[in-house]
C-alpha cells in the first residue's frame, strides 16, 4: 500500500502522461528538438573534453623549452651557432636541433609532417621502437630511410612497396626506403608523420648544414624551466621561447566555448530555447485554459494544477536531457563523432580515427541541465500558475 501523498503524485503523473499523450505530436516534436539541441551541445563538450584530456595525458613529456627564430613576425630557420651561445647558461642539460616542416603532396592533396632529429639524444630513446608496428627508426648510418605514419602509407599507396619519393624544392626527386611504420596506438600523434635523419631532411627541404628549424632544450632541474627560459629570451632576443607549460596550456584553451563552432552550437541552442520559452511564456492556448478551468470547477486546487504542469515539463525536458546525452555519448564513442569530425578536420586529407573516451563530467552535465531543463521548467510552470489563479468561470466562459 503506497503512502497517500505518493499515491496522489502517481495519479497526477498518470494524468500528466495521458495529457501529454493527447497532444503527442506537439510534445514529441518539442522533446525531439530539445534532445537534438542537448545532443549537439553534449557531443561538442564530450569530444573536446576527450581531446583535451588526451592531450593532457600524452603531452606530459614535450620538450621542456623550444626556441624558434623569428624574423618579420614569422618563424624562420635558426642558426646552429646559437647552441654555442646557449652553453653560457647554467642548468641546460641538452640542446637538440630539430628539423621539421610540412610536405604538400599535390597528387593526393595531403599535408605530411616531416620530422628529423638526433634520436639518440632524446629521452625514452631506448623504448622508442615500441611506438612502431614493425621495423626500426632510421639510424645515422642509414641514409635515405624513413619511418612513416599509417595514413602516409595508405595515401602513398605503398602497401607492400618499401620505397617512395618526395620532391626537393628544385623539383628533383629524393627517394626513401621505409624501415618502419608507426603503430595504430600512436595514430593520434603520428598519422601524418614521416621521421627521417637530419641529413635527409636538410637535403629534402634545402636547409643549410648550419641551420635547423628549432632547438629543443632540456634542463637539469625542471623547477628552473621558467628562469632558464627568461635567460634565453634575454640572450637571444630574436627568438620566441616556448616552455612545456605553455605548450600544455594550449590544449586547455584551444577547444573551448569561445571557438567558432561552439559559439554557433550554443547560439543555436539558445535561440531555439528562446523561441520555445517565448511561445510558452506568452500564455496558454484557449483549450489549455479551458482545461484548467474545468479542473478547478471539479475541485482541483491550484497546487494540483501546478503539479500537473510541473510533471509535464519535467517529463519532456528530463527525457530530452537523458536521450540527448546518451545519444551524444554513442555518437562520440561509437561513431567517431562523425557529425562534428567533418567540421573539425576541414579539408584535411589525413586525419586520425578518433578512438577517444567521451568526457562525461558532472560539471558539464550540470551546465547543460542548467541551460536547458531549468529555464524550460520555469517557462512552462509560470504561465500555468498565472492561469490557475484566475477564477475558473472567467476562463471557461
Amino acid at each position, binding site marked *: 500500500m503506497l503512502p497517500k501523498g505518493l499515491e496522489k503524485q*502517481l495519479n497526477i503523473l*498518470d494524468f500528466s*502522461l495521458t495529457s501529454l499523450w493527447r497532444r503527442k505530436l506537439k510534445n514529441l516534436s518539442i522533446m525531439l528538438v530539445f534532445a537534438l539541441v542537448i545532443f549537439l551541445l553534449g557531443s561538442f563538450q564530450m569530444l573536446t573534453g576527450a581531446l583535451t584530456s588526451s592531450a593532457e595525458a*600524452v*603531452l*606530459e613529456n614535450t620538450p621542456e623549452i623550444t626556441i*624558434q627564430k623569428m624574423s618579420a613576425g614569422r618563424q624562420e630557420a635558426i642558426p646552429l651557432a646559437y647552441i654555442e651561445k646557449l652553453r653560457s647558461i647554467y642548468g641546460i642539460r641538452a640542446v637538440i636541433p*630539430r628539423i621539421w616542416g*610540412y610536405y604538400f603532396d599535390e597528387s593526393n592533396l595531403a*599535408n605530411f*609532417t616531416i620530422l628529423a*632529429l638526433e634520436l639518440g639524444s*632524446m629521452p*625514452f*630513446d631506448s623504448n*622508442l621502437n615500441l*611506438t612502431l608496428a614493425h621495423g626500426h627508426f632510421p639510424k645515422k648510418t642509414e641514409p635515405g630511410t624513413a619511418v612513416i*605514419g599509417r595514413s602516409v602509407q595508405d595515401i602513398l599507396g605503398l602497401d607492400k612497396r618499401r620505397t617512395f619519393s618526395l620532391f626537393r624544392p628544385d623539383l628533383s626527386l629524393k627517394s626513401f626506403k621505409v624501415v618502419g611504420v608507426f*603503430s595504430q*596506438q*600512436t*595514430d*593520434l*600523434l603520428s*598519422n*601524418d*608523420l614521416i621521421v627521417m635523419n637530419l641529413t635527409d631532411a636538410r637535403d629534402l627541404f634545402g636547409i643549410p648544414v648550419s641551420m635547423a628549424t*628549432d632547438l*629543443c632544450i632540456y634542463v637539469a632541474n625542471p623547477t628552473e624551466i621558467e628562469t632558464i627560459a*627568461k635567460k*634565453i629570451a634575454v640572450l637571444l632576443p630574436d627568438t*620566441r*621561447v616556448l616552455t612545456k607549460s*605553455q*605548450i600544455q*596550456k*594550449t590544449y586547455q*584553451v*584551444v*577547444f573551448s566555448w569561445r*571557438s*567558432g*563552432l*561552439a559559439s554557433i552550437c550554443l547560439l543555436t541552442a539558445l535561440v531555439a530555447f528562446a523561441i520555445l520559452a517565448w511561445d510558452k511564456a506568452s500564455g496558454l492556448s484557449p483549450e489549455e485554459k479551458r482545461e484548467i478551468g474545468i479542473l478547478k470547477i471539479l475541485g482541483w486546487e491550484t497546487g494540483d494544477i501546478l503539479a500537473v504542469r510541473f510533471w509535464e515539463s519535467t*517529463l519532456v525536458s528530463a527525457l530530452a536531457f*537523458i536521450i540527448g546525452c*546518451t545519444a551524444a*555519448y*554513442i555518437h562520440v564513442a561509437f561513431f567517431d563523432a562523425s557529425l562534428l569530425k567533418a*567540421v*573539425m578536420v*576541414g579539408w*584535411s*586529407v*589525413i*586525419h586520425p580515427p578518433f*578512438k577517444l*573516451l*567521451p568526457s*562525461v563530467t558532472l560539471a558539464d552535465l550540470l551546465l547543460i541541465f542548467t541551460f536547458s531543463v531549468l529555464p524550460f521548467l520555469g517557462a512552462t510552470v509560470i504561465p500555468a500558475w498565472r492561469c490557475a489563479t484566475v477564477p475558473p468561470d472567467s476562463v471557461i466562459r
Partner: protein
Amino acid sequence: MRPSHTLFIFLLLLIIIDGMLYLHAKRLSKDLKEDQAIQAIAVAGLGLTDLGVATEARYTRHPAVSDPMAPFMDHPGAIEHFPTGSFWSAPTNMFSQKY
C-alpha cells in the same frame, strides 16, 4: 497498465542502456591508458608538441608552436579561410607570458 508504469519501464530501459555505456567507458578507459603510455613514449622520444587532429593548416596541425597570427599571415589583410579555423579557438593566453 497505468501510464506511469509504462514510463517506469521506459526509464528502466534508459538506465540499462546508460549502465552498459558506463561499462563500455570503463573498458575503453583501460584500453586507452595502454595506448597513452605508448603515445607518451612517442612524445618524449620525438619531441612532439601536438595532436595530429587537423592537418590542413599549420596552425591547426601544430597550434602549440604556431603563432596566433599565423592564420592571417598569407598577405596583408588576409582573412582566415580554413574550415578548421572555425573550430579551433586561438590560444589567447599562450603568449601572454613574455620572456
